[in-house]
Each structure stands twice: as C-alpha cells, then as structure tokens.
C-alpha cells in the first residue's frame, strides 16, 4: 500500500519495512508475553475465574440486567435531550438578541461543566427537595446529568445542522411567503435532521460511556456497577473487567458503524442537500467542532475533509 507520505517501496525500502515490522512484532510479542506471564504469575489465567462467563447465571443475574440499565439510561437521556437540544439550538439562531443570549449562555454553561458534577448535584438535589424514592434516584440523577450535558451538545449539533443548509433554502421559503416559524419547521428542520442523524447517533456513544459514571459514583446498577457485584461473587476482578470492556466496545462499535453507514448513505442519497454532519465531527472530545465558541472557528459545521492520507 502506498500513500502520499511515502513512495511505493522499492527493494531497499521493502527490506527496511520488513525489518521495522519484525522489530515491532517482536516488541509487541514481548509485551503480550510479559502480560501473559504476569497474568499467569498472579493466577489470573485460572479457568475457574473465566468459567462463570460460560454459565447463563452470570449473564442473566448480573451482566444483562446491567446492560439493560445502561441502555435504558442512555435511551431516556437521548429521548429527553434531543427535543431540548433542538429548542436551544433553534433559540441560539433566533433573531431576538435576548433569546440568543440566554440560550447561548445556558448551552455554554452546561457544556463547560463535567457530567459527573451534574449527576452528583442532581442526585443530592432529588434526595432533598423531591420525593423520588431512593431506589429510583440514581436513575433519575444519571438521566438528569446526561440530559443537561447532552442537550447542550445536541443544541450545537442542531445549530450546526441548520447552518450547514444552503442559504437558498431560507430565501426560497421567504420568497414563497412562509413565515419564520414555518420556514424553520417545514423547510429547515426536516433537512437539518437528516444532516444531523449521523452526529446524533454517534453522540449516543458518548452517552453510553457516561452512564458508567453513575454506576461508580451514584451506585446506579448499570453494566460497570453490575461488574462489581459479579466480581464480588466470583472473585474475578480482571476477568469481569475484560468481559465488560468487550461488551462496551462491541455496543459502541455497533453504534459508531451505524453512524458512519448512515453518513455514507445520506451523502449518497439524492434527496438531501448534500450537507451531512459526520460522526467524525462529533467525537466526544470534540463537541465544539461544530461551530462552538470554544474557538475552532468551524462555521456552519465542519464537514469532514476527504481522507487523503493513509
């Protein structure tokens, strides 16, 4: 395989690449071997420690209910955060300065605060000022924290989605006599939603990952928390971590793949305006990439450039 960064290897380069491959392979093998030895030393390769995962009991009592709770919290958070985010995203585009200002402040505020802080606060708030039962409270707190943070992020996605539409769409709507509200609801939003779909799906990955915080800090019985209960029963800390990590990876990998499939599909289909907010733009660590004030200057949603290298 060649790339712009290097020429198609000739005989010498081929030999050198093989040498590098060999050295790297040896180093990698040494690392793996060392890890394997270390596991063996500590008796972590004992089949008894792995055995529980082949029984249905470990799955039906611990892992699957945990996974169900993770998905439940993530789905609830998404369903509530999306309309809320849409409202704030549209409000940030308002013609009225004070609406823009208030929405902008709220969005920037909640994006600047760690989700964990929001969750901890919500948990304590519910326990003091509301009569949410103590067994429901962790779920409520986790969902509240996730909603507040992700509504702010999704507001930015919505805003970027609307801004990514060609100006002609708005102008045409005004030309045929639609009012501002009508333009937004029947012309801009439907197209923006299509453009935003991949970004929204990939935001789900972030939400799924963040539910794990509630498990550790608020004792919400999600996947990571159930791992603790399971490990306490079978004394297989390392093994349970590996299994749970794999479950998270598979789940999130499915979501990521779905998002990028959706992105490709939308780019191909002729019915959209061609503006698609890709999953790449919406990585967790890159929320402001869609034209936020955190200074990326990505006006109107940075559309992913074509991958020319590698």
């Amino acid at each position, binding site marked *: 395989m060649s790339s712009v960064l290097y020429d198609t290897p000739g005989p010498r380069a081929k030999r050198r690449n093989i040498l590098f*491959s060999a050295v790297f392979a040896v180093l990698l093998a040494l690392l793996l071997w060392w890890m394997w030895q270390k596991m063996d030393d500590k008796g972590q390769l004992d089949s008894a420690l792995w055995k529980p995962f082949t029984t249905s009991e470990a799955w039906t009592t611990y892992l699957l209910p945990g996974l169900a709770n993770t998905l439940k919290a993530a789905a609830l958070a998404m369903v509530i955060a999306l309309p809320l985010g849409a409202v704030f995203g549209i409000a940030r585009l308002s013609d009225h300065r004070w609406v823009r200002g208030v929405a902008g402040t709220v969005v920037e505020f909640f994006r600047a*605060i760690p989700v*964990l802080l929001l969750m901890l606060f919500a948990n304590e708030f519910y326990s003091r000022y509301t009569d949410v039962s103590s067994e429901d409270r962790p779920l409520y707190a986790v969902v509240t924290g996730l909603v507040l943070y992700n509504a702010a992020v999704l507001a930015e996605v919505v805003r970027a989605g609307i801004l990514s539409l060609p100006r002609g769409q708005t102008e045409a709507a005004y030309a045929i006599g639609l009012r501002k509200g009508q333009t937004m609801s029947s012309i801009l939003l439907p197209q923006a939603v299509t453009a935003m779909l991949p970004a929204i799906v990939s935001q789900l990955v972030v939400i799924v990952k963040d539910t794990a915080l509630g498990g550790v*800090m608020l004792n919400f019985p999600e996947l990571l928390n159930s791992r603790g209960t399971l490990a306490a029963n079978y004394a297989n*800390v390392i093994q349970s971590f590996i299994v749970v990590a794999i479950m*998270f990876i598979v789940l999130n990998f499915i979501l990521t793949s779905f998002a990028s499939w959706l992105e490709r599909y939308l780019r191909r289909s002729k019915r959209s305006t061609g503006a698609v907010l890709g999953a790449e733009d919406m990585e*967790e660590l890159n929320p402001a*990439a869609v034209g936020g004030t955190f*200074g990326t200057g990505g006006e109107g949603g940075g559309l992913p450039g074509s991958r020319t290298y590698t």
Partner: protein
Amino acid sequence: MFDFLDGYDVLGAFWMTVKLTAISAVGALVWGTLLAAMRVSPVPLMRGFGTVYVNVVRNIPLTVIVLFSSLGLADIFGMTMGSDDFDIQGFRLAVLSLAGYTAAFVCESIRSGINTVPIGQAEAARAIGLSFRQTLTLVVLPQAFRSVIGPLANVLIALTKNTTVAAAIGVAEAALLMKTMIENEAQVLLIGAVFAFGFVVLTLPTGLILGWLSKRLAVKR
C-alpha cells in the same frame, strides 16, 4: 453566606484537578503524536496497532479504564507506580489512565490535521528526496500541528472535565470534594454553583486563549 466553605480545601481540590489535567495532557500529547505517526507510517503492523488501539480505547468508558487501573493494575498486579503512598499511587494511576485514554483522541485530531496539509507539500518533500520520517517531522507535522490547535483545545477542555472521573478511585480533586460537601452541608445549590463556576473558570479561558492562538497560527491557505 460562604461559611460552608470553611474547613474544606476547595482551592486545593481544584489545584489537584489542574495538576491531573496538565500532567495527563503532556502524556497524552506525546503518546497521541506517536500513535498518529504509527497510523500513517509505511509499516502495516504499526498502522494496525494504531488503529486497534484508537478504536478500542475510544469505545471503552473512561470510568472503566480508571477503575481498572485501581482495582486491576494496582490491587491485583501490584502496580505501585513507584510509590507506597495510597494518595500518590491513585494520582499516578489516574494520570496513566487519563493520558492513555486522551491519547486516542489526540491521535485522531492530529491525523485529521495531517489530512488538512495539501498533498503537494508531501509530494514536494518526497520529490526532493526526503524519507518518510523527514517528510513527516520536517514538512507535514509542523503544518498539521498549527491547524489542529483548535481541535486539541477541545481535547484539553474535555480532559479537564474528564479528570473528575479520578474521583472514582479516590483522588482528592474537585468532584470528590463536591460529593463530600453536598452530602454534609445544607447549601446544595450554592456548593453546586461554586464548583460549576470553578470549572467554567478552568475551561473557558483555555478555550478562548487556544481559540485565539489557533486563529493566529493557522496556516492561511
């Protein structure tokens, strides 16, 4: 009104957050750049390793990684990180996890920055006979870095917020102190506001300064 702050080391907790952020950021930058170099290198095995690392790490919750570093690495494998002190150990394990996790995102930012450098630059570098390493370190990366300051600023801001996860293994940073405080004091709203304000103070200037820097340094094309 702010009596409840007495007896709590709020500034100390935020200082811990800053220390966690700064040290992890340096680690993540170094490891992330190496990963990015691997991902564009001519050696297939390195490319494969980089790809697997990034995709695996990005899909695991940071909480899982941090908790594993404490319950798995420290307790079972006895990884003491060069200290017997429980607090220092927790801090170092948190830095290790945060750096390892953030590096995956740094790698992707840098890789996307590499993609913004015009192909002609790399072609010209190859034409005058530079090797892959020279092309990357002398021509492509310096230009790429200037264009990824913005994305890297976002990574840094996210890292600042992510340091709160260290509370899960008992590192005495802001989130852990807030948890203790809101459980023991009456002024839930006020305490929440103080800590929220603290994070706004940490993240907002970072974003503004680096945003300004990225506009100034971006290679104008």
